[in-house]
C-alpha cells in the first residue's frame, strides 16, 4: 500500500464506525437508566470515552509505531499473545455480525415482517467481505462517502426545534433512574468503535504522531451529535414517552415530512444501513488483522471470509431482536473491558519490556 491514511479520513472513519443504530435508542437508555435530564450522562460518558482514547494514545506512543500484535509479542510469550489476539478477534467478529443482525431485525420489524432475515444477512455479509478485503485505506475512502451521504440527516432534526418545550427539561436531575452502572455500559457502547485507532498504527505515515488527534476529533464529533440529539429528544418527548419508546429518535423523525417523502424516519433508517455496515466492517477488519497476525501464512481475504461465515452461523442462535440486543450488550461489555484493559496491559507490558531492555526508551 503506497498511500497512508490522512487525519481527515481517520476522523471520519472513527465517527462513522462509532455511530450505529444504538443512537436511535440513546434517549431511552438515558431516560431509563439515569432518569430525568439523563442526557447529562452523555457528557460524563463522553469524558470517560475521551479518557479511554487518551489511554490508547499513551499505549500507542509507548509502542513507538509498532502494531498491536508486535507490542504484545514484546512482553508476552507467543502462545499467550496468540490466544489473546484470537480471543479478542473472535469477540470483535461476533460483535460485528451481531451489529449487522441487529440492523436487519430492526429493519424487518419496520418493513419486512414476513421475510426471512437470513438471506438478507447473507447479502450484507457479502458486501462486508468486499469492504474488508479492500483494506483500511480504501475503507477510509468508503467511510468518507458514507459520511457525506448521511451527514444531512442530523440536521433534519433541527426542523423539530419549534416542538421542543422547555418545561420538559424539568428542574429535577437524574430522578427515576437508578441503574447507573448498567446505564454506563449501555451508553458507552454507543461510542464503541474508537478502538479501531489501536489498529491503525501501521497504516499512518511513519513518524507522524499528530494523526491521533484526528481520533479525538472524530470521537468529539460523534459525542456532539449524540449530545445534541439526546438533548433535543428530552425536550421533544416527555420523560414517560422516552422510557416507553423503543427508538425515540426514529419516532421523532416520524414527525418530519418532506414535500416528496412522507416518512422521513424510514428513509433515515434506510440510510443508516451504510453506517451499520461500516461499523460491522471495521470490527471484522480488526478481527481479520488480529487473526492474520497469528496465522501469517493465510491470506487476509480467506481469514475474513472464514470469520464472516463462521459468525454468521453463531449469530443465528439468537433469533429475536431482544435476544440479539442481550448478546450485543454482553459483547459490548467485553469490548469496553478490552478497550480499557488492553491499553493498560500494553502500557505495563511495554514498561516492563523497557525495564528488561527489550525495547529502547525513546
Amino acid at each position, binding site marked *: 500500500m*503506497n*498511500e497512508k491514511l*490522512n487525519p*481527515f*479520513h481517520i476522523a*471520519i472513519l472513527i465517527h462513522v464506525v462509532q455511530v450505529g443504530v444504538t443512537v436511535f435508542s440513546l434517549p431511552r437508555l438515558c431516560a431509563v437508566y439515569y432518569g430525568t435530564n439523563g442526557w447529562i450522562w452523555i457528557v460524563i460518558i463522553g469524558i470517560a470515552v475521551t479518557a479511554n482514547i487518551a489511554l490508547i494514545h499513551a499505549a500507542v506512543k509507548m509502542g513507538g509505531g509498532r502494531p498491536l500484535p508486535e507490542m504484545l509479542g514484546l512482553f508476552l510469550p507467543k502462545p499467550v499473545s496468540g490466544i489473546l489476539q484470537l480471543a479478542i478477534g473472535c469477540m470483535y467478529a461476533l460483535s460485528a455480525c451481531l451489529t449487522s443482525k441487529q440492523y*436487519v431485525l430492526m*429493519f424487518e420489524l419496520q*418493513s*419486512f415482517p414476513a*421475510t426471512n432475515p437470513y438471506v*438478507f444477512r447473507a*447479502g*450484507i455479509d457479502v*458486501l462486508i467481505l*468486499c*469492504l474488508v478485503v*479492500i*483494506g483500511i485505506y*480504501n*475503507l*477510509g*475512502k*468508503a467511510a*468518507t*462517502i*458514507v459520511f*457525506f*451521504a448521511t451527514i444531512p440527516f442530523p440536521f433534519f432534526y433541527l426542523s423539530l426545534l419549534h416542538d421542543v418545550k422547555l418545561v420538559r427539561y424539568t428542574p429535577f436531575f437524574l430522578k427515576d433512574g437508578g441503574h447507573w452502572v448498567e446505564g454506563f455500559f449501555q451508553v458507552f457502547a454507543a461510542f464503541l468503535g474508537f478502538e479501531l485507532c489501536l489498529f491503525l498504527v501501521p497504516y499512518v505515515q511513519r513518524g507522524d504522531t499528530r494523526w491521533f488527534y484526528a481520533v479525538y476529533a472524530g470521537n468529539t464529533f460523534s459525542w456532539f451529535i449524540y449530545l445534541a440529539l439526546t438533548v433535543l429528544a428530552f425536550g421533544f418527548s416527555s420523560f414517560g414517552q422516552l422510557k416507553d419508546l423503543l427508538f425515540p429518535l426514529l419516532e421523532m423523525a416520524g414527525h418530519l*415530512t418532506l*414535500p*416528496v*417523502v*412522507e*416518512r422521513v424516519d*424510514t*428513509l433515515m433508517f*434506510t*440510510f443508516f*444501513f*451504510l453506517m451499520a*455496515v461500516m461499523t460491522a466492517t471495521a470490527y471484522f477488519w480488526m478481527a481479520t488483522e488480529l487473526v492474520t497476525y497469528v496465522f501469517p501464512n493465510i491470506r487476509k481475504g480467506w481469514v475474513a471470509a472464514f470469520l464472516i461465515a463462521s459468525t454468521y452461523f453463531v449469530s443465528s442462535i439468537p433469533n429475536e431482536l431482544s435476544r440479539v440486543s442481550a448478546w450485543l450488550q454482553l459483547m459490548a461489555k467485553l469490548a469496553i473491558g478490552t478497550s480499557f484493559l488492553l491499553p493498560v496491559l500494553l502500557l505495563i507490558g511495554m514498561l516492563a519490556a523497557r525495564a528488561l531492555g527489550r525495547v529502547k526508551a525513546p
Partner: protein
Amino acid sequence: MARWVSALFRKNRSGKNDSRGNKGNESVTDGQGRTPEDRRPFFSLVRQQFHDCHDLVHRSYPHLGVDLLYFGHLVGPEELDRDLVRPLETVDPGELDQLLARSQFMRVETFTEAVESILDGQAVLFLRDGKDGVWLAQVSNPPGRSVEETEVEGSITGPHDGFSESAQLNVALIRRRLKSARLKAIRLRVGELSHTDVYVIYIEDIANPAFVEELISRIRDVSIEVLHEAHELVQLIEDHPNSVFPQFYTTERPDITVNKLSQGRIAVVVDGSPTVVTAPASLMEYFNAADDYYMRWISATGLRILRFIAFIITVSFTAFYVSITTFHYELIPRTLLVNLAESRARVPFPPLYEALFMEFTIEMLREAGARLPSKIGQTIGIVGGIVIGQAAVQAGFTSNILIITVASSAIASFVIPSYMMSTSLRLLRFGLILLAGIWGNLGLMLGFGFIIADLSHLTVLKSSYMTPLAPFNLRDWKQLVIRGPYWSLRERTSQSRTRNRIFSKMKR
C-alpha cells in the same frame, strides 16, 4: 526467407516497439544477434519480402541505377512528385549524391528499417540494388478523415473541431494549441501485426514523471497482435479491468485534452482512433464538460450540480420507484398516493417486472437508434414514443408514473457528458432495480454499498479514483465539483501529483 521473417518477428517481440524520439524508426538498433544479411537492405530482398503485395509500387530509373518502392495509397501524390519524382527525373547521374544529401532523404541501414519505412508510407530509394546505399523519403500521407466536429461530445460554445483517426493530425491539433517545446510526444508502437503508433503526450515539468514512466511501461507491456482503438488500449492498461466504471478519461475534443495536459495529466493518442485518453482520471471528471470552462462560472457550477443530480436520478430513480411501490408505500406523500394507486390499479404485473419491461424497451430503442442511419433513427423515435408513451399505458402494461420515472432516468443518463460513464451507470441501474424489487430500500442500500466498495478501491495509475471526495481535498472541489471563478483557480488538481502546482499567477 524464413530466417528474415523470423528475424523480423524476433525484433518486434524483443524490441517491444520502442521508438522514443522524433526520428521515424529509431527502434531498429544493432547488437541483437541479427545476421549480416539482415542488416543490409538489398532491393531484391525487400522486394521478396513484399511478394504478393500487388499494391506495392516499383519505379525504376535505370540511367541513375535507382529503384523506388512505396505503397501508392500511403504516400501523398504531391509530396512524392515534389520531393522524389521530379528531382529524380531532372537530376544528372553525377549530381545524384548531392540530391541524396538533401534533408528529405534519410539513410536506411537495415533490412527491417527499410521494410517498416515502406509500411509506414515512406518511399524507399535503392541505389544500385542497395549496394551503394538505401534512403527513405518522407512522403507519407495516408488517406483519412479531415478535422470534423465530434458527434459524441458536442458543445454549444467553444471550439468545434474534433480529433480524427490520424494520430499525426491529432498530435498536430494538440500542438497547435500548446506551442511549447515542453510538450513532449513519445512514440511507441503496439501490436505485433498492426504496429499501431501510440503517442504518450505530456508537458515536461508539469506532469509527474512517475506517472509518465508508469504509463509508458504499461503500454510497452501490451502484447497483442492488432490494436484497433484507444478504448481497447485503455482496457489493456487500466488498474482494475473488472470494474464497471471507466477509469481513463477519453475524449474526442482537443480543447479538453489540452486542458487536461495543462492540469498535469498525460494524454495518449492512438493511431486509427479519434479518441484520446487522459490519465490519471477521477470520477468527478466524468461530470465535467468542455462548455463549463467557457461559460460564466455561476452557470457552469449550476450545470455541474444538475449533472450530479442526473447521476443520482439515472442510477436510482427507477429502483426507488420499484422499492416504494413494492414495499414502502408509507414513503409516498398522501396527495400522490391516490394518483399512484389509480395508475397502478390496472397494471397486472408487480412493479419489478413492469419497470424491467420498460427499461429494456428504452434500452432497445436507444441501441437501435445508435446503430441506424439518422433518417430511420427518427422513425424509431416516433415508434418508441408511441409505444412507450401511450400504448403501453392504455394496454395496461405499465403505469403513467413509471413512464415518467423511466423517461427521467433515461434523459438523466444522457445529461452525463461521458458516453462511457453513462453506459456504465445504465448497467448499474438494472442491478439496483433487481435489488430494490427483491429487498426494497434495504436492497437499494445494499446495491449502493457495493457501488461504494467498488469506487473506494478503484485507482487510476495507483491514484485514487474518488479524489477529491476521498482523499478529501477541498481545494480541488473548485476545479472538479463546482467550476470556481477563474481568479480562484490558481492551482492544479492534487491527483496529478505535480511538483509545479501553480496554474495561474493572476492577482485580483
